[in-house]
C-alpha cells in the first residue's frame, strides 16, 4: 500500500510551521509567521510545503493541526467571553465560591455570574442532594438576564457520576438556546476546584474556539484540500474538529506533547528524554513508550490551578537568546532573553546583546549569523559560558530522570545548536534532522484514541470479564474514531473502586490508541 501524504501544522505564538510527510520521510517543511487570523498563516505555510514538494492539494490524505493558540489566548486573557458557573453540590462546598483564587485580571474578564445549587455526589455515588429542575431553571434565568454567553457546570464527584452534569447541560441548552455549555467531567479529574477551573477556562474559550476551528476549515478549503483534518489534544492523539470547538482546553498541553512525539519519531527512540530548546526557555520531558510522561501535580495555567493531565515538563531559563552576563568571576546564562528579537539583537546578527547563541558561535561549533562579530570575545569567557550552558542542561536532565541509569537524549528546537557534547548521565545525544519543526511532525504522526469511562460491576461479571469488556469497548471506540484495527493497543487502564454501591462497583477508564486509517493516496 502506498502511504498517504500527511500534512502536520503547528500554530504557535510566533510561527506557523507546516511539514509534509509520507511514511517515515519528511518531504518538505516551512515556517511562516502566525497571523491574527490563524488561517492566513496556515494557508501560507501549507502552500509553501506543497510548492516545495511539488504536490497538488488533492493528493493530500490528511491534515493534522496542533496549536497553542487556546493556551496563549487564555494566559493573555484575549478573546475570552464572560462565563456563568453553575456548581452542583449544595449544601456542601459553599465555603469556597467559584473563581475565588483566580488572578484578578483574568477574573475581571471571565467572571459573569456564579450559582451553587443542590446536587453532587459522595465518593460512594450516594447523592449529596437531589437535583432540582426548578433550581436549574431559576439559575438559567439569572444567567439570561446577565446575557452570559457560556456556562461551566461542575458537580461534586462528577468523575464518579456524570449524570447530573449531563442532565443540567440539557436543561440549560433548552432554557438558553444559543448559550454554550461545558461540563467539568469531560475535562478534569478528582479535585473540585481544579476541575471547575478547567471547565470555566473551557467555557471562556468557546466563542473563540468556534471561530478558530472555522478558520482552520476555511484555510484548508481555500487551499483546495478536501482531505479530513484533525486537531491534536493533550495526550498526543487526535480530536475531531467539532470536539475541539466544544472542548478547546483539551488542546492546552498539545504543544509540548507534539514536540516530544515528533522527537521520538525523528530519532526513532521511544524511551528517551527530550529537550526542546527555544529562544527563551528549554523544556525537558520524558518519553515513555513514545508518549510523554504525565505530571502528577496540579498545574498552574496563567495563575489558575488545574489538574489536567499534562506532560511532566521542567522548564529552565536557557535558550538561544539567553543573556550571557558576568558577575565577579562567574558567568551567568539567562533567564532573561532577547526572545524572538534574537535575529536583530544578538551579536552575530548585528545587535548589541551577548547571547548564548553568540557564545556557541564564538566557540566554533554553531554556524549562524556573522562569526566575525564575536571573534574578539574573551576566550576564557566563551569557554566558561559554554561549560555553564552544558551544566544547566545536565542539571535539567538529571532532574527529569527517574533512575540513575543513563538514558538517551533527543534535542529539538532552534536552540539545539547550543549543545555540542555528550551530557553527563546521558547514554547518547541526538539532534535529528528537521528538529526545528518537531512540533508539526508530532502533529502529523498523531494517532487516534477511543475511551471507555463508566461504572462496571465486579461482583456481577468478575474483574477479568469487566476489564475485557472495557478493553473491547475502548477498541471499538478507537475504530469508530478512525483507527486501523490491527494497530490498536491499550495505553491506559485506571480502576477506581466505588464503595457502598451494591455490586462491587468500579469506575474503569480505559484508553485504546491506534494509527489513523486513511484511504490510499489519489
Amino acid at each position, binding site marked *: 500500500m502506498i502511504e498517504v501524504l500527511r500534512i502536520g501544522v503547528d500554530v504557535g505564538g510566533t510561527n506557523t510551521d507546516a511539514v509534509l510527510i509520507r511514511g517515515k520521510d519528511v518531504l518538505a517543511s516551512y515556517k511562516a509567521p502566525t497571523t491574527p487570523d490563524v488561517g492566513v498563516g496556515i494557508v501560507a505555510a501549507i502552500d509553501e510545503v506543497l510548492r516545495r514538494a511539488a504536490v497538488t492539494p488533492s493528493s493530500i490524505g490528511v491534515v493534522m493541526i496542533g496549536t497553542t493558540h487556546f493556551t496563549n489566548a487564555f494566559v493573555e486573557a484575549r478573546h475570552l467571553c464572560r462565563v456563568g458557573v453553575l456548581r452542583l453540590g449544595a449544601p456542601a462546598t459553599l*465555603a469556597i465560591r467559584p473563581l*475565588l483564587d483566580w488572578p484578578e485580571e483574568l477574573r475581571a474578564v471571565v467572571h459573569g455570574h456564579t450559582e451553587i445549587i443542590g446536587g453532587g455526589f459522595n*465518593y460512594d455515588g450516594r447523592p449529596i442532594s437531589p437535583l432540582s429542575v426548578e433550581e436549574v431553571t431559576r439559575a438559567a434565568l439569572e444567567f439570561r438576564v446577565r446575557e452570559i454567553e457560556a456556562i461551566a457546570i461542575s458537580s461534586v464527584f462528577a468523575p464518579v457520576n456524570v449524570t447530573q452534569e449531563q442532565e443540567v447541560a440539557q436543561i440549560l441548552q433548552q432554557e438558553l438556546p444559543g448559550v454554550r455549555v461545558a461540563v467539568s467531567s469531560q475535562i478534569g479529574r478528582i479535585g473540585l*476546584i481544579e476541575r471547575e477551573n478547567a471547565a470555566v477556562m473551557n467555557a471562556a474559550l468557546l466563542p473563540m474556539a468556534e471561530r478558530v476551528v472555522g478558520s482552520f476549515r476555511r484555510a484548508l478549503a481555500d487551499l483546495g484540500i478536501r482531505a479530513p483534518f484533525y486537531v491534536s489534544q493533550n495526550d498526543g492523539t487526535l480530536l475531531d474538529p467539532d470536539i475541539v470547538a466544544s472542548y478547546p482546553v483539551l488542546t492546552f498541553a498539545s504543544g509540548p506533547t507534539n514536540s516530544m512525539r515528533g522527537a521520538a519519531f525523528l530519532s526513532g527512540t521511544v524511551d528517551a528524554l527530550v529537550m526542546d530548546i527555544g529562544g527563551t526557555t528549554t523544556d525537558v520531558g520524558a518519553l515513555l513508550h513514545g508518549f510523554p510522561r504525565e505530571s502528577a501535580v496540579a498545574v498552574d495555567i496563567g495563575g489558575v490551578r488545574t489538574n489536567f493531565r499534562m506532560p511532566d515538563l521542567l522548564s529552565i531559563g536557557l535558550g538561544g537568546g539567553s543573556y550571557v552576563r558576568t558577575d565577579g568571576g562567574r558567568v551567568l546564562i539567562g533567564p532573561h532573553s532577547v526572545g524572538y528579537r534574537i535575529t536583530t539583537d544578538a551579536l552575530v546578527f548585528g545587535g548589541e546583546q551577548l547571547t548564548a547563541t553568540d557564545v556557541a558561535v564564538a566557540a566554533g561549533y554553531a554556524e549562524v549569523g556573522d562569526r566575525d562579530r564575536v571573534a574578539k570575545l574573551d576566550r576564557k569567557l566563551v569557554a566558561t559560558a559554554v561549560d555553564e550552558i552544558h551544566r544547566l542542561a545536565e542539571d535539567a536532565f538529571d532532574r527529569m530522570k*527517574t533512575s540513575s541509569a543513563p538514558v538517551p537524549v533527543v534535542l529539538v528546537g532552534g536552540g539545539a545548536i547550543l549543545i555540542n557534547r555528550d551530557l553527563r548521565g546521558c547514554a547518547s545525544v541526538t539532534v535529528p534532522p528537521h528538529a526545528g519543526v518537531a512540533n508539526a511532525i508530532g502533529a502529523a504522526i498523531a494517532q487516534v484514541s477511543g475511551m471507555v469511562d463508566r461504572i462496571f460491576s465486579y461482583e456481577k461479571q468478575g474483574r477479568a470479564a469487566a476489564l475485557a469488556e472495557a478493553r473491547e469497548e475502548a477498541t471499538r471506540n478507537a475504530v469508530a474514531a478512525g483507527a486501523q484495527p490491527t494497530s490498536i493497543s491499550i495505553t491506559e487502564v485506571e480502576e477506581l473502586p466505588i464503595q457502598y454501591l451494591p455490586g462491587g462497583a468500579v469506575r474503569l477508564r480505559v484508553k485504546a490508541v491506534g494509527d489513523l486509517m486513511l484511504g490510499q493516496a489519489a
Partner: protein
Amino acid sequence: MGTPMQITLDHVEDLARGAAILGTGGGGDPYIGSLMLRQALEDGLRVELIDVESLGDDDFAVPFAIMGAPTVIIEKIPNGGEMVAALRATERYVGESAKAVLCAEIGGLNALLPLVLAARCGLPVVDGDGMGRAFPQLQMITYNIFGVPASPMIMADEYSNTVLIESDRALEVERLGRSMVVAMGGSTNICLYPMHGRDAKRSMVRGTLSLALGLGRAIREARRASNDPFVSLLAYLRTTPYYQHCRVLFEGKTVDLLRETKAGWAMGRVLVEGTGSWLGRRCSIQFQNEHLVARDGDRVLTIVPDLIAILDAATAEPITTEALKYGQRVAVVGISAAPIMRTPEALAVLGPQAFGLQDAFLPLERIDI
C-alpha cells in the same frame, strides 16, 4: 501577655506555607483551608489570634479539625455552617459557651480551619495547638497526653447532622470516629477535647500559629529580596522560644523512593544522595503519613517527635510525601519539638516506639552531625 493579632488576607499565604512545613510531609494540603479562610475574610469576617494566657481559667475553649480522606476533602468542600454546628452542639452538650476556638493540629490543612470557624462565630483563636506539627491519629495530641478527655467529640456533616461520641478512652474515640467518617461520606468536621482555660494553659503547644506565620513570612521575604530562604528560615526559628534548635540535616537529590499503603497509612522511605558538603553520603527518611526519622547511613539525624521537613533546595517550598519523586533537589531540615512534646508522657504516645521504631528518642541538638 501579647496583644491580640488581627488575621488578614495578607497572612493567608504565609500561614499555609508555614503550616505545610510543620506538616513534616503530611497533614494534608492546606490549599482548601487557605481558600476557605480567604473567602471568610473577603466576606468581611474578622478573626483574632490571642495568647493562651489571656484565656480565663474557667473560659470554655473548643478545638476544631477536619477528619477524613484527602481525596474527599478536595471534592466535597465544607459549607462552613457544619463547622459552626459542631461547635454549637459541643456547647449545648457541655452546657457552656465557647470563648475561643483552639487548633488541634498545626501541620497542614487543619492549621487554617479553626480560623475559619472562629471567623464565622466571632470568636478568637488561641495561638497554639495540640501537636506542634502533624500526626496521623487523634490521640497523638498533647491535650490527650496531659489528661484532657477527647470526648465529647461532635462530628458534623454538610447537612449539619451531628453525631456525639463519648468514651473515656481516646483510642476508642478515634476508632469509632473513623467508622463515622465513612458514614458521613469520607470526611467530617469535628470538635473534640473541649476544655477550660486552665487546661489549655498546661496542655497546649504554645505559639504555633505565630510560628507557622513566621515561617511562611521568612520564606516569602527571603524570596522577594533574592536571599537564601534557608538562612532566613533558620534565623527566624532561632528567635522562637522552643523551636530554636534547628539545622539543615542534609542536602542532595532524591534517588530512590519506596511507597506502600498499609492499613490506610502512606508508608515508605526516600533516599537522598548528598551534594555539596554532603557529597558521597546518603540520607534516608522514613515516613508514615509524616516523616518519622532521618538517618545518615545508620546514624539517626532526627527522630519523631522532633520535626523533619523536606524542602525544595532552591525555593524552600515544602514537599509532601505524595509529591516526592526521583531527582528532586532537596534540603532536609530538622527542628526541635516543643519541650512539652519531649516529656516521657508525650514520648509514650507520639515518640519513636508509637510508630514501631526501635531507636530511642534523642533530641536533635544532642546529636552530633
